[in-house]
């Protein structure tokens, strides 16, 4: 294998790894928003997932238990948002921001003891038998950490459920027209609760991927705005799980680009701006597209449903 080939394979491989937490977070946010609930707490949920995953994996020596803990804590914290925005019909934007503050605060307090401790039991790359032997593609797609595989399967399954099953129709109708969905016998509150919690679980797992596979250690503020990029990717994906994969891996590529361009003398802080600049760029592009195709957000996104006020 030549030097260039090796470089390209390693870049693509790392782009997929860097895109994995973004994909997981975006998939969860797509479900929450499809049901009509905007959750701006992803950054905080990811932080909680990262710290709880790291802590539990460190103590038990088992990264899978860490992953489980991240999912559970993501679910618990997102339940707060579901309660405040669905049951109490409060302002979803403020509630989401509050959730982010809470998540960053708790993770900072919880993770203080973990700073500087390396994780010996991180998620290792797994070679899928036979498939990983395929030239080039095998190394890129089938020699990755387990959470990568989980995220890809989750993306496909979640797309299928959302667009090909009755459950998916119900979720989308709750986000588009909750009144009509209610009349058809869909439980609006329950659907929204479940979707927000799915979002919380996936955001937690996304955080755990950072602290258990991608970085693997705990650093305060390690989510570095990924939770906000997820919100932008949800729009870029036009609320479609398959398009979310495209967006997440493109952004993964941008994170890898930072390392690639460092040796040619671009100041590191300018490189660190790339994901944020790219987010603005992606929003500009998707704005054109949503206008052209007349595809927008779920119509009842961000609007609390009030059963009494018909």
């Amino acid at each position, binding site marked *: 294998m030549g030097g260039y080939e090796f470089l390209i394979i390693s870049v693509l491989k790392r782009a997929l790894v860097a895109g994995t937490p973004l994909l997981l977070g975006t998939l969860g946010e797509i479900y929450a928003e499809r049901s009509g609930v905007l959750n701006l707490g992803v950054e905080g949920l990811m932080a909680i997932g990262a710290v709880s995953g790291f802590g539990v994996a460190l103590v038990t020596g088992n990264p899978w238990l860490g992953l489980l803990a991240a999912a559970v804590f993501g679910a618990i914290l997102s339940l707060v948002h579901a309660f405040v925005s669905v049951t*109490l019909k*409060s302002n979803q934007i403020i509630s989401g921001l509050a959730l982010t503050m809470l998540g960053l605060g708790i993770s900072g307090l919880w993770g*203080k003891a973990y700073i500087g401790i390396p994780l010996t039991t991180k998620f290792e790359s797994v070679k899928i038998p036979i498939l990983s032997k395929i030239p080039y593609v095998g190394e890129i797609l089938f020699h990755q950490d387990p959470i990568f595989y989980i995220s890809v399967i989750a993306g496909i399954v979640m797309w299928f459920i959302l667009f090909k099953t009755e459950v998916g129709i119900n979720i989308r109708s709750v986000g588009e027209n909750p009144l009509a969905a209610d009349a058809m016998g869909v439980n609006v509150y329950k659907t929204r609760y479940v979707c927000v919690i799915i979002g919380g679980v996936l955001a937690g797992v996304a955080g755990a991927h950072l602290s258990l596979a991608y970085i693997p250690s705990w650093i305060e503020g390690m989510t570095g705005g990924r939770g906000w990029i997820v919100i932008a990717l949800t729009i870029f994906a036009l609320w479609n799980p398959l398009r979310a994969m495209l967006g997440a891996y493109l952004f993964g590529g941008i994170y890898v680009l930072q390392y690639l361009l460092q040796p040619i003398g671009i100041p590191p802080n300018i490189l660190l701006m790339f994901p*944020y600049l790219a987010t603005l760029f992606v929003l*500009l592009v998707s704005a054109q597209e949503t206008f052209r195709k007349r595809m927008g957000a779920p119509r009842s996104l961000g609007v609390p449903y009030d059963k009494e006020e018909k």
Partner: protein
Amino acid sequence: MKIKVERRGEISPKKRFVYLILSLIIGFLIGGLIFLFKGINPFYALQKIFVGSFGSIYGWKETITKAIPLMLCGIGLTLAFKGKFWNIGADGQLLFGALLATWIGLSLGKTYPAFVVLPLMFVGGFISGAFWGIIPAIMKVKLGINEVITTLMLNYIAEQFIQYLVYGPWKGKTQYGFPYTDNFSASATLPVIKGTRIHYPTLIIGIILAILIYIFIMKTKTGYEIRVIGENPEAAKYAGINFLKTTIIMMAISGGIAGLAGVGEVAGIHHHLTTPTQISSGYGYTAIIVAWLARLNPLVVILSSIFFGGILVGGDTIQTSMGLPFATINIFNGLILISVISINFFLEYKISIKR
């Protein structure tokens, strides 16, 4: 048995106040529980927070110092939030204000007297803060791009840009390799109340602006238009309100005032530009709660900014005396915000159980 939820009519200010206090108490109680889980005595921690900020003359001095940027950012945010423009970018707007003010201070400070340099620094800070605020305004009105994300991204970009400057081209020649610009000369530094770090000109500007913005929102045509856009965008469309113009004016003022806070920090506290985390300990984010707690009333922001100034000082105290990370204070910020918006439900709805 059935739970019945009904909307209430008018709510008296007294009742609102009681509920506000109640929500603060609930916020602190839950925060205390989280401390307990972590094996920290919550009463000890809370005592440290409040004694550190409001329990001594020194505490008060620091509390007011921290209240200044919170007040300015908070006032700017009340205006944007009135127009339902979710400006989460006060932190970046503050940093951009600090940026241009630094450039003015360093280039003019050595040759011109203070009465020329300082006003120019404030004007410059307002303009650059406004510039950073107008970008998301145009993106929202022209292209329908969600302002929460754009303002946040602009925060991160501003942070990295300042970081680049103070580690790179702007690094001071006399700072022994620290990431600071050179120090401002005397005519580019703000006076302080003796024995404190309270740069009173910025504080006075804050109080005057609170009054002016209150009048602007309640008494002027543009202020009225901002409120209509916020409360009923459909009606605003029919009334022929120019969304682009109004939103740009609104965000220029909102970002500009946050920029003034940045001027205060560099000219009043640090006397040079330094890393973003030094210049703003998340003032722009805390200001969201400051504005919300004040029910978007700029005059009440004066009070709520002092309260949260105290919380930030308390955060410093538990950091130094108990070794807790500064982020801990975010727990209280988040919980207070959640309990304030939650308790609103019980204020506006009456819940009764029928058998």
